């Protein structure tokens, strides 16, 4: 009997290993498949840099919303915040000339994001409202504010952020890639090396336990949302510069993409779990899939089905890990 069981044990182990590393395996297989179908074009330097740029543009926002999800919450206000921040950045860059303009713009949009993040976090922490509702409400107000002040005007934007920082065999790598790396390092430090980071995970896994052990829960929640707001503001600046103008559709449904990417990366809605490396992986994977579909000529209805299926499968795989741990 024991001899009969042995192979089944090792099969289970292999299966377990495959399921535990499913996301990475899917990324690799998809990469190989697309590369073969496109005569290697998918894994050549130009597309690698393209993927790097797309990931760098979307990563800061995902890092912001990831904190909210670690708190077992969410944040729907991000997309509209990006739109408003893009507009503010466009106005500032248009009004001030000189080297300092983009710096002032970044600081201004981050300040605006922090202010809105404070409102989000305060309402959630102080009045015990679910962040879904709070941010559903604030995103409407942010969009309303945007429409009121901008009258849906398009404004052209250009700044150093989108300019090439250096070239890799003729391929320009823009400055915002460096900024994304800096932000990621800072966020890694905040999550892993600060008391605030530890408190964030404590509040996310068990708010009451955290409170009893002396964590300032209200402050933690507010600070997580302020941090997220700052990153949305930054994303608005980058997106306006990257796309080249600010318009009403800027940022629309970015929050959905960011939340999807974060969840794909293993930050659980259960709260209290998540890693910066997971967020990076999730954003990268999302961009990889979207890019692969363009390469493979998949558009229209099928593209939505694939995107949805990836999110669902990722969540199932993630939940499976959580259940086995329990």
């Amino acid at each position, binding site marked *: 009997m024991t001899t009969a069981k042995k192979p089944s044990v090792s099969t289970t182990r292999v299966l377990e290993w495959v399921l535990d590393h499913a996301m990475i395996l899917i990324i690799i297989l998809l990469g190989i498949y697309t590369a073969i*179908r*496109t005569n290697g*074009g*998918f894994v*050549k330097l*130009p*597309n690698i*840099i*393209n993927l790097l*740029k*797309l990931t760098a543009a979307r990563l800061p926002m995902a890092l912001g919303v990831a904190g909210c999800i670690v708190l077992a919450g969410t944040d729907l206000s991000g997309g509209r915040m990006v739109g408003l921040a893009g507009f503010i950045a466009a106005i500032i860059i248009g009004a001030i000339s000189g080297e300092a303009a983009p710096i002032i713009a970044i600081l201004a949009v981050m300040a605006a994001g922090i202010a809105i993040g404070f409102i989000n976090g305060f309402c959630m922490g102080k009045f015990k409202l679910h962040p879904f509702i709070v941010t559903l409400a604030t995103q409407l107000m942010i969009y309303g504010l945007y*429409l009121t002040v901008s*009258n*849906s*005007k*398009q404004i*052209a934007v250009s700044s150093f952020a*989108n300019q*090439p920082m250096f070239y890799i065999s*003729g391929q*320009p790598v*823009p400055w915002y890639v460096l900024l994304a790396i800096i932000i990621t390092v800072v966020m890694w430090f905040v999550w892993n090396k600060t008391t605030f980071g530890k408190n964030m995970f404590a509040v996310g896994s068990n708010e009451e336990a955290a409170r009893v052990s002396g964590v300032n829960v209200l402050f933690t929640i507010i600070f997580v949302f302020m941090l997220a707001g700052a990153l949305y503001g930054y994303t608005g600046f980058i*997106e306006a510069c*990257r*796309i*080249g*103008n600010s*318009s*009403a*559709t*800027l940022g*629309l*449904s970015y929050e959905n993409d960011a939340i999807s990417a974060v969840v794909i990366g293993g930050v659980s809605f259960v709260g209290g779990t998540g890693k910066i490396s997971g967020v990076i992986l999730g954003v990268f994977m999302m961009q990889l899939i*979207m*890019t692969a579909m*363009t*390469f*493979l*000529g*998949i*558009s*229209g*209805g099928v*593209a*939505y089905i694939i*995107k949805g299926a990836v999110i669902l499968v990722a969540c199932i795989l993630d939940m499976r890990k959580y259940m086995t741990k329990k």
Partner: protein
Amino acid sequence: MKKLLALVLAMSMLLGAVALADGNALVSWYTFGDVYLTSVRTALDEAFAAKGITVTDKDSNAIQTTQTDDINTAVLIGTNALVINLVESGSISVAQSLLDVAKGANLPAVFFNRAVSQDDAEAKAMFEGYEKSAFIGTNFEEAGKMQGDMIGAYVLENYDAIDLNGDGVISYVMFKGDDANQEAIARTKYGVENADAVLTAAGKPALKFYDDNNANKYLVDLNGTWSNTASYEYMGTILSQYNESNGNMIELVIANNDDMAIGAINYLKTVGYNDGKGKTIPVFGVDAVDAAKAAIDAGEMAGTIKQDAVGMADAVATITANLIEGKDKFEGLNENYRVVDGWFVQIPYAMYTGE
């Protein structure tokens, strides 16, 4: 005495309110977030103000139920006219239900910009069912056809310059705004078909979609918002594979609207094209928004199709005012607008390739 005074005051306020409401129109918009519609809104507010009609602009935010609720509420409050930029474009049953609301309250119902049906006969039957109604729009297929004609002529004239790899065929990419929108579908179809007709008539091969694997022959904004973000990111992805060093550079960009055209141009700029001085890939849009006109004037963009926002607003305001005052529907209407079958006022498109 005080009571009497209060009563008199209340009565006069009521009368005042009624007097004010004499020229009051609800304008229910598909979305405030659209650049072209915003230009119509600005023009329409002015056009109504010039006719002494007070306007309430409502944003449906692309949700049909919001629009329906707003219209029902406006009827209850006592508006004098319903001016409707239908959310569910192409859905005759939704349009009919809104028309019935107007009919029930004996109010003018003026639809504009977004078509009520793909089938003109169906739309005609609906509008003929109620005298105080009209549709002001464009022939929604005309923009795509005109864009295609413009592209055909432009490509023919500059064929060798556009054909970067000298293979005798022009490869293009098409950016579609929304998979479910009738105008987007028509523009995607005719933008290429009409261009091909011009080219083949002159003995040149038809345009070729850059990617043979893509049977749809377009790339669509998956959020359905016709956004420059979508076209910008697509451009980045496809140019990593299709470029001059690989000898298969995209030689022509066609977009359903100017926003997407500008997104494509902004990416092209990052890789050294379309800066108005050096190498330029011809990019075509539709709408003639300010940003596109500026890009065309700077030599970064090849052309666009002008939707006449001011003309649209003028026609809507004129017809609404006529209906409120009980005059003939089309009295005093600008002669450049075609009136089709007594219900449909067509605002013509125009090509824009710079001033």
